[in-house]
């Protein structure tokens, strides 16, 4: 108990990063398992009938918040708290204790939030469901919104102070990306949760999708790309192909991502000019995406073959290719005529998993397999398990993606032929069975991943020592 507490509220260098990572992996396993249960309800709707907490409408937000706010966001925090100090030449972040307190606050917030969601306490706004409603007289306050905001600000302050107190004064691109993400996200979060104003009707939808898209664009994308810009040169031993390209990417992401939200409600009766702004900036997103990817793939030059041996690099490459797919799909879907056909169908769910599971989760997997040995001074407990994790997750998402994409095309074809939705939905059963099978593979992969990390961190005697630790830090 004493030891656990001192590990949690530790001041050791890199302890905040480690603690964030370990808890994030717990939310990963939890969140994907909930996704699996939710997916099974499409083919066995009566299996859990009568249990309010397990009905689809409640599990879906639990799944999304556990994987997005629990796993990915906390994983990003872990990566930032490792990468930033290394880049500015510090031993650990500005205040590890503050970092650890943020970590605890975040986890408490998640537990309270998930418990609330299961019991019907929700804001009912996509990607912003976490509520924690407290009744104060006649007004009700969603306290979790504020806790997330405070936690994000603490992250930002810690990252900023780390950069400011570091020895290295020239900022590597990753630092730009991280500080950008930490600047944008709190602002977007508070706008998205509409903490200050209640808007009417469609204006609420416009603001809601401003948030819904920017949590993806200004947080997950910017953070994930920042992580890769650090990892790829490390993995390959090549220098980053072009700093200029990476900075062009940074500025254009900031310019073109932010106004795209309305492409989620492209056919609703919102003002046409707003839709045009959204469509045009969505297509322009190809600029930052292509600069980022050119940079990634050119940095890989001459080193592609190393992926056979280098497991983290494998994750990174798979994630990079998925990023390419996502970002070709995205602008394509955002054009009016394509959106006309595909909107509301399962195609969109496929796209969401391509982006968040196949791309950004893979980036964090790569980072985890790189950082854990660095932080503990040991090799991963088992390379075999890591390989299994890779293949299960890779095939899992490919199968999931294919089944959802085909299901989406089937759905759209039926609807546009005037077949009522309730008659056509029966046709999708095979694809949903396949999605559940792929879900089993993915969840299994994540359990292996958790076990592997757990063993590496907590059973030092069963792991090989690293020959030497290049950053010179051996902790835990």
């Amino acid at each position, binding site marked *: 108990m004493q030891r656990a507490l001192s590990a949690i509220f530790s001041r050791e260098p890199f302890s905040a990063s480690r603690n964030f990572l370990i808890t994030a992996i717990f939310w990963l396993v939890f969140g994907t398992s909930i996704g699996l249960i939710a997916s099974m*309800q499409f083919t066995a*709707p*009566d299996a859990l*009938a*009568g*249990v309010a907490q397990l*009905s*689809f*409408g*409640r599990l*879906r*937000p639990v799944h999304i918040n556990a994987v997005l706010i629990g796993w990915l966001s906390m994983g990003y925090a872990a990566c930032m708290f490792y990468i930033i100090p290394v880049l500015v030449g510090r031993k650990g972040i500005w205040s590890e204790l503050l970092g650890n307190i943020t970590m605890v606050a975040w986890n408490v917030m998640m537990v309270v939030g998930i418990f609330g969601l299961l019991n*019907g306490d*929700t804001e*009912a*706004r*996509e990607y912003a469901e976490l509520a924690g409603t407290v009744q104060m007289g006649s007004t009700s306050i969603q306290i979790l919104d504020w806790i997330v905001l405070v936690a994000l600000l603490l992250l930002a302050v810690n990252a900023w102070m780390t950069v400011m107190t570091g020895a290295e*004064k020239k*900022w590597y691109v990753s630092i730009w990306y991280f500080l950008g993400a930490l600047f944008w996200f709190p602002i977007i979060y508070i*706008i998205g949760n509409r903490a200050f104003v209640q*808007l*009417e*009707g*469609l204006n*609420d*939808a*416009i*603001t*809601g999708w*401003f948030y819904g898209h920017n949590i993806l664009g200004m947080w997950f994308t910017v953070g994930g790309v920042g992580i890769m810009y650090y990892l790829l040169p490390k993995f390959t031993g090549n220098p980053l192909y072009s700093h200029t390209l990476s900075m062009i990417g940074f*500025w254009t992401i*900031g*310019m073109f991502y*932010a*106004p795209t939200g*309305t492409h989620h409600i492209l056919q*609703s*009766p*919102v003002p046409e000019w*707003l839709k045009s*702004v959204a469509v045009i900036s969505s297509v322009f997103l190809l600029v930052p995406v292509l600069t980022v990817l050119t940079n990634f793939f050119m940095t890989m030059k001459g080193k592609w073959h190393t992926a056979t041996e280098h497991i983290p690099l494998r994750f990174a490459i798979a994630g990079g290719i998925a990023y390419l797919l996502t970002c070709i799909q995205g602008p394509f879907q955002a054009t009016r005529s394509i959106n006309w056909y595909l*909107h*509301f*169908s*399962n195609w*969109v*769910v496929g796209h969401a998993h391509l982006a968040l599971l196949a791309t950004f989760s893979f980036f964090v997997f790569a980072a985890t397999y790189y950082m854990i040995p660095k932080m503990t001074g040991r090799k991963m407990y088992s390379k075999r398990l890591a390989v299994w994790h890779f293949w299960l997750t890779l095939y899992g998402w490919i199968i999931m993606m294919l089944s959802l994409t085909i299901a989406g095309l089937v*759905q759209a074809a*039926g*609807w*546009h*032929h*005037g*077949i*009522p*939705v*309730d008659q*056509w*939905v029966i*046709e999708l059963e095979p694809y949903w069975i396949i999605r559940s099978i792929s879900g089993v593979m993915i969840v299994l992969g994540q359990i292996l991943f958790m076990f592997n990390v757990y063993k590496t961190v907590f059973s030092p005697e069963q792991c090989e020592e690293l020959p030497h630790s290049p950053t010179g830090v051996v902790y835990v």
Partner: protein
Amino acid sequence: MRINYFVAGGFVVLIFLVIIFVTTVLPASTFKPTATPAAHKYTPMELAGRNIYRREGCFYCHTQFVRYQDRESGEMVLAGDYMYETPHVLGTERTGPDLSNIGGKYADGWHRAHHDNPRKVKPGSIMPSYSYLTEKEKEQLIAYLQTLGAGRKMTSWVVPPQELQDEYEHVKAFVNVNSSAAANSGKGIFMQNCAQCHGMTGEGNGPVSATMIKKPANFTRPFYTQYSDAMWYYRVKEGVPGTRMPRWGKTLGREQMLYLVAFLKTLPKDTQTVQEEITSLKQLDNPVDLDDNYKYVDQAAERYGASRNEAFK
């Protein structure tokens, strides 16, 4: 060196603030649609129902957002419809049908049975069962659903796809579907090809129907008075995917299908209008016995003056 960072940083902040202004503040201050007849302030009861709708996550499967290509969901929505919809429940996935115009489509008793176990009234449905809601919550939820799209006509619900409408315009000259001679020819074709499923009188109770989960349509329902000739033609030609209704366009000729149209359009009991059907169904609101799959159907059939098995007596 440092100063450059601050200039650059200030530039990011500025651009970002401009974007926030353009995409959220500007619409919120200039986009002010006026309320349409379909928009309405919710009563406390309906509002409570709406909150249950949000709490149970109905909007993850149901949209409230009819686009012009969504033929089966009723009239397209207008900006003013959403005046009192705060927070919005437009939805992103269409696992189940759009609910913008659901109000008045079914009787309260249907919704109640549907919420308790969707599979009892809609075989093959994958909607979750909401039997765990309390009685009061069920009432509130139904009150909310019945307000949706209030005031919109039902007749625009059933329109065939444009290409079939065009085709029908082209072929309709071959047979006068309003003549009784054509209807008589159609009856013969119906007895040979359709009666085993749809029943001799078109009530959907032919012997083969016993083997089906998705029962054949009962053409005597007043609902079918809304069907245009082109719609009948479309349904017969293309069949009903996801059910055992064949695509007759594959086996029957153009004239045969037109004769069938002539016959089918005589079947609906037009003594009642759609609105009257709904009112009469509403009187059935005594609790539906869920153990009996057909009780509700039978009650409804009785009201139209026909029992399920009459055709076989």
